[in-house]
């Protein structure tokens, strides 16, 4: 068997987000040629690519004979969260999340909060699992550290959304504070989504 360190460290083709983005771009181009305009933005392509990348990693990890981590709780956490995050991201990107259709600032804040609720539902399902313990960990347990981080980021995201909601519901407020509040809220929701994604694929 080869022991070349470069070969061993090389990332397999299905683990590359770039490859997935290119495949999705190719599919969109071909669809457009046949008269189907999928109207997928660069950000959405990246999100779909992460979904496929995560899914490929999950299947490979579940199929492998070797455990991914030595700690049982980490392995179980990865098993639980990955399918949820993959499916949520797929639903977000393929079924159409609320923020994709919003037009006005108030609609966009409303849509962001609706998307945030969807992420919260996944976080709640994870939090509801029994906590992992060093020994005799129950199957499908939740990591205390991850739950605490979810809660901390949730507090930040909720505050940002509340501020944005106050701003867009204030009559006659200028464009600048609206744009600033929208950007902060959008970034905060993205932070929560990235946390779920990171824990799902770790």
């Amino acid at each position: 068997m080869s022991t070349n360190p470069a070969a061993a460290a090389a990332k397999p083709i299905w683990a590359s987000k770039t490859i997935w983005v290119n495949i999705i771009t190719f599919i969109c181009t071909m669809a457009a040629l046949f008269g189907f305009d999928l109207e997928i933005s660069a950000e959405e392509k990246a999100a779909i690519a992460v979904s496929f990348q995560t899914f490929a990693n999950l299947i490979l990890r579940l199929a492998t004979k070797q455990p991914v981590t030595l700690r049982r709780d980490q392995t179980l956490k990865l098993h639980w969260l990955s399918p949820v995050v993959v499916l949520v991201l797929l639903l977000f990107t393929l079924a159409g999340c609320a923020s994709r259709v919003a037009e006005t600032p108030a609609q966009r804040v409303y849509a962001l909060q609706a998307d945030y609720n969807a992420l919260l539902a996944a976080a709640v399902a994870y939090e509801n699992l029994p906590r992992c313990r060093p020994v005799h960990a129950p199957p499908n347990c939740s990591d205390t550290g991850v739950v605490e981080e979810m809660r901390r980021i949730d507090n930040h995201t909720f505050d940002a959304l509340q501020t944005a909601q106050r701003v867009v519901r204030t009559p006659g407020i200028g464009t600048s504070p609206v744009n600033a509040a929208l950007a902060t809220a959008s970034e905060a929701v993205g932070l929560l989504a990235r946390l779920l994604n990171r824990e799902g694929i770790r």
Partner: protein
Amino acid sequence: MTVQSGILFASQVLSLLPAVIAGVEGAAEAMRLGAATVERMVSENRDPTADEWSELNIRTAALRDRLHSDEA
């Protein structure tokens, strides 16, 4: 994949199903509600009403209560 690893894979998938279904159902329901409401707003060319904001805030508060339920 050997028979043993195949059985292990199947058992892992089965043990995950209840949690996966619970998480995905909740998320899908939240997304469906949000997308439908925003689509209606866009088609009616209007911003969210006070009632719509209120309903959304109630759903958010309920989810946050559950996420932070046993927080110290």
